[in-house]
């Protein structure tokens, strides 16, 4: 009974929360600082939860107002509108991804030219960051991360691989596969498969590919969306632990996979830092005028079976 009651109260608080946030924003102008983070992720992408928690924590610690916005379907044209809209609401800073330079560079540049400080996070390159006039880039250089992973795999004796890509339309993410192939010293060729977003489809496609290409040494997945079904696929095929399996990003299942030996390593780009650090940088820049002199690489950090404790504890929340 009490638990029911508390659940009820909790959900009431949950419903009320956004409206409370509304009032906070309305009152917050003036002495308070407001930063808006715009991502390219659709609502369904759970990986971005860490980012949401990252800015929320930074906002709390630094006593600034933070907001998270994203295009519901992941349509980048909609994202461009959200950036324009964010600029129109005159925040002190915008933190955004640069998933497609053509589409997003215009709105970002306009925001910069209006005097809004912009930090690029997660997707994009240092060159593009400079070109749109943003302060800095906080993220993982994708090609370099892929390259490092490829070199590591080569040292472990890998000669061929399949790259399971669940975001085929995101050119930046595909760089990870290219870097990996270059690290191995082989041609990417037909090794990258368009897996789609649906878990059972991804699982079936991985199974089909591995059956058709039994000589494949290694699997590279590009995030929890493709890693989770791939774990199931290799378990079902009875090759879990046999096949070399590396993945980008972390999640509950990936951590479990690393623990039981299915996955050799996960590359953590540490999204928490990608959200948390820009807020810290912007707040200190606005308050004291201090700014780090370079881009910040939040990754790659290799997570292996050693030292999983912290990862396990905060997986999905801050890791």
């Amino acid at each position, binding site marked *: 009974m009490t638990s029911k009651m508390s659940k009820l109260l909790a959900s009431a608080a949950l419903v009320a929360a956004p409206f409370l946030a509304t009032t906070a924003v*309305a009152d917050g102008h003036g002495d308070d600082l407001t930063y808006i983070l715009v991502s390219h992720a659709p609502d369904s992408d759970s990986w971005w939860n860490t980012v949401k928690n990252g800015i929320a924590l930074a906002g709390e610690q630094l006593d600034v107002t933070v907001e998270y916005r994203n295009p519901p*379907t992941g349509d980048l044209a909609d994202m461009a509108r959200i950036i324009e809209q964010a600029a129109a609401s005159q925040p002190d800073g915008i933190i955004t991804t640069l998933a*497609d330079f053509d*589409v997003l560079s215009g709105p970002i540049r306009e925001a910069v030219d*209006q005097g809004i400080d912009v930090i690029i996070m997660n997707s994009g390159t240092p060159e593009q960051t400079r070109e749109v006039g943003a302060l800095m880039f906080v993220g993982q250089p994708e090609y370099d991360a892929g390259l490092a992973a490829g070199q590591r795999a080569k040292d472990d004796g890998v000669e061929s691989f399949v790259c399971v890509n669940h975001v085929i339309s995101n050119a930046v993410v595909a760089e990870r596969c290219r870097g990996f192939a270059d690290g191995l010293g082989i041609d990417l060729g037909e090794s990258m498969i368009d897996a789609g977003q649906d878990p059972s489809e991804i699982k079936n496609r991985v199974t089909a590919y591995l059956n058709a290409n039994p000589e494949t040494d290694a699997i590279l997945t590009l995030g929890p969306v493709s890693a989770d079904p791939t774990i199931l696929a290799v378990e079902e095929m009875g090759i879990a632990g046999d096949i070399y399996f590396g993945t980008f990003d972390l999640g509950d299942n990936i951590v479990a996979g690393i623990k039981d030996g299915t996955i050799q390593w996960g590359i953590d780009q540490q999204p928490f830092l990608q959200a948390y650090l820009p807020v810290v940088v912007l707040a200190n820049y606005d308050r004291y005028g201090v700014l780090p002199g370079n881009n910040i690489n939040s990754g790659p950090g290799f997570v292996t079976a050693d030292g999983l404790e912290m990862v396990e504890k905060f997986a999905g929340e801050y890791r």
Partner: protein
Amino acid sequence: MADVSHTDERIKQTSRLRQALIRPELGGIVGTVAVFVFFFLFAHDSGMFNAQGVMNWSVVSAQFMIIAVGACLLMIAGEFDLSVGSMIGFAGMMIAIFGVTYELPMWIAILITFAICIAFGALNGYIVVKTGLPSFIVTLATLFILRGFTIFIPQTLERKTIIGGIREAAEGDWLAAVFGAKIGKPIFQWLGDAGVISTFERGSRIGEPVVDGIPMLIIWALGLVIFGHWLLTRTRFGNWIFASGGDADAARNSGVPVTAVKIKMFMFTAFCATVFAVCQVMEFGSAGADRGLLKEFEAIIAVVIGGALLTGGYGSVIGAALGALIFGVVQQGLFFAGVESSLFRVFLGVILLAAVILNTYIRRIITGER
């Protein structure tokens, strides 16, 4: 006409209020007022009503309007088109393929794209009227077919799913400007200089107003709304649209060419989707395989909020335009108001449900059902 000699005592004299109630635009008008009052109260100091904010939700609403006009006329004619979103992605990709990959002059690329997309619209219509299958299913098939091509073609030709460089390829092209240019720049510059609109503080465009013109997208939206409203209410063809959707057999018996009307409406819907796509690629300079996802539902939602009946035969283009305005203002306004963005869907669902219930009530009044 006024000297009605003896009235049927069972027909109650209806009040003006009740007569106003059965206008299809009613829901749209009430909703628009309510939405603006709401956001004026909760987001008036958030930048939503400065020049840049107004331009932001106007552009988003204009996008919805363009596809809502097509969806509205088609729905009044008694059919649906679920392939609108895929058509947007497909049309954008065709322009990129012809204009960038094959390096054709941009105006030719645009015209070819219009021809291909309208042909797909005609095919949709032809299959629907000839087989008598529900348009729901036929266009669902088209949805997948077009989306598949939109991913397959660029992957085959360019080995990627986003093709950029359209803005550069369209430089100086007259037809591209019809979709991608901005008009009224001197006026906005003057407003910027006068301090009515804020100006850029730094960068290459320092001193220019933050809103430097009205995008052609908005002109197209207004133009299509006016055209659609005129077509529906002022022409013979408009009467045929109502008749085809109200009761196709009765319309046929009265000599209305129902088949032609429906096919033309499918073509018009495809035309609207292509206009949307061309404006989008001209503005952003790239075409992506995932553009336009779920836009078909957004169009239908705008039309339903605007008072059209899902069963056809009744509706209004002005209503659909207001529905699009509500949709756009709510979507962007919730951000301005600082409401958690995932709640947008909740608001949308509530508005949609309210609109459908109101529409059902209106239908009962009109048809005298009890």
